[in-house]
């Protein structure tokens, strides 16, 4: 597929709206990328859900509106290189078996999902191919090769609505994720909900609190100039409240990821997004 400048985006600022999040709208190649929508039924305390993009400054927002300017795209290019790179004892690359990465369109919107009674994330799927089909070593969960690949695969779903299954086999995992979301942890004794549900739209020191949505991951952060995984972000938030984070790729974070994905139901994939 063509990964070069296929996107021209304009940030149109609507004035006068009295929302805590700003009222800019994001459009890709003349096509609007939805950054707010009605909250899914299961969310009891929130009426409208917003993309984290809506809470960033104008300058940060602008970086995501044009793929030439989007600093995450360098890493997507690295993902393209990795896609074609032979690795492991079987002498294969991803492209040996998967004809076109564009075939993964829609995959991001449905993850994590249940397989063989366990929850699997995109990182798990990639590593399963590496270890079981290529005879290659697993990539570290949040390190550069992995985030480059999840950015490339996630990008194929850009503009498509988040739509994870939360019933049936997924229900127990979803319930566990919900419980974690509302549990206070750390010396500062806060839950994810204290900041991202009760106080989104307000400033916490220099940061404008968003709803903590995950539709833009992996995200490029200006703070560390690289792509950041979903679990890496969870870890950062836990450490900020002086809590011992759960393991990246572990059961707790996978359950939390499923629950958060479901809180973004209807928002569209923005991978790779840009944040401060």
């Amino acid at each position: 597929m063509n990964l070069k400048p296929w996107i021209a985006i304009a940030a149109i600022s609507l004035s006068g709206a009295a929302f805590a999040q700003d009222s800019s709208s994001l459009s890709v190649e003349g096509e609007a990328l939805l950054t707010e929508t009605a909250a899914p039924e299961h969310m009891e305390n929130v009426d409208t859900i917003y993309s984290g993009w809506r809470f960033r400054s104008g300058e940060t927002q602008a970086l995501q509106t044009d793929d030439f300017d989007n600093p995450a795209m360098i890493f997507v290019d690295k993902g393209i290189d990795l896609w074609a790179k032979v690795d492991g004892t079987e002498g294969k690359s991803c492209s040996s078996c998967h004809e076109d990465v564009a075939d993964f369109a829609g995959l991001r919107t449905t993850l994590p999902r249940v397989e063989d009674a366990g929850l699997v994330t995109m990182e798990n799927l990639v590593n399963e191919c590496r270890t079981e089909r290529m005879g290659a070593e697993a990539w570290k969960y949040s390190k550069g090769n992995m985030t480059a690949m999840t950015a490339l695969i996630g990008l194929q779903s850009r503009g498509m609505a988040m739509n994870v299954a939360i019933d049936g086999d997924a229900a127990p995992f979803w319930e566990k994720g919900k419980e974690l979301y509302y549990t206070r942890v750390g010396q500062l004794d806060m839950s994810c909900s204290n900041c991202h549900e009760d106080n989104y739209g307000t400033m916490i020191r220099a940061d404008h609190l968003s709803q903590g949505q995950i539709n833009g991951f992996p995200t490029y952060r200006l703070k560390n100039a690289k792509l950041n995984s979903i679990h890496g972000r969870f870890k950062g938030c836990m450490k900020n409240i002086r809590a011992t984070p759960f393991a990246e790729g572990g059961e707790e974070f996978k359950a939390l990821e499923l629950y958060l994905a479901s809180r973004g139901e209807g928002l569209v994939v923005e991978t790779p997004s840009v944040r401060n």
Partner: protein
Amino acid sequence: MKNVLGAAIFAALIATTASAEDVKPMEVAFVDGTVEVSLTGKAGDAAEGRKVFANRKQGNCLACHTNADLSEESFHGEVGPPMDGVAGRWSEAELRGIVTNSKMMFEGTIMPAFYKDTGYTRPLDDFAGKSILTAQQVEDVVAYLMTLKEE
């Protein structure tokens, strides 16, 4: 990973500020969310309290409260109410209660308890068994808050 020397110095600092006569975190006596007596038995130092209020590693109260008296500091959060004139709204005993453990005054609040050292879930090892502020720092902050009167 950790700076051992830094940790040792930090421990030494704590030792000089936490005195044996201080009321222990779990022994603080609350009456309707208020704490009548000084945790150190002495009055706090308002100038020190002003620093603790702003310091990101100590009170970091500015994360959530705007405060016109600290206008030289950039980035005041707005999660909680402004601190301007707070001494006119609350008594010293009420402020001591709020800073010590605001959950005794405001049920379910996001505001951390600053003088409580047990009952936390998964605290980072470096902070396990410790309160965010020392008794002295709580008293300093309370003394500082008492200076925030409406003009």
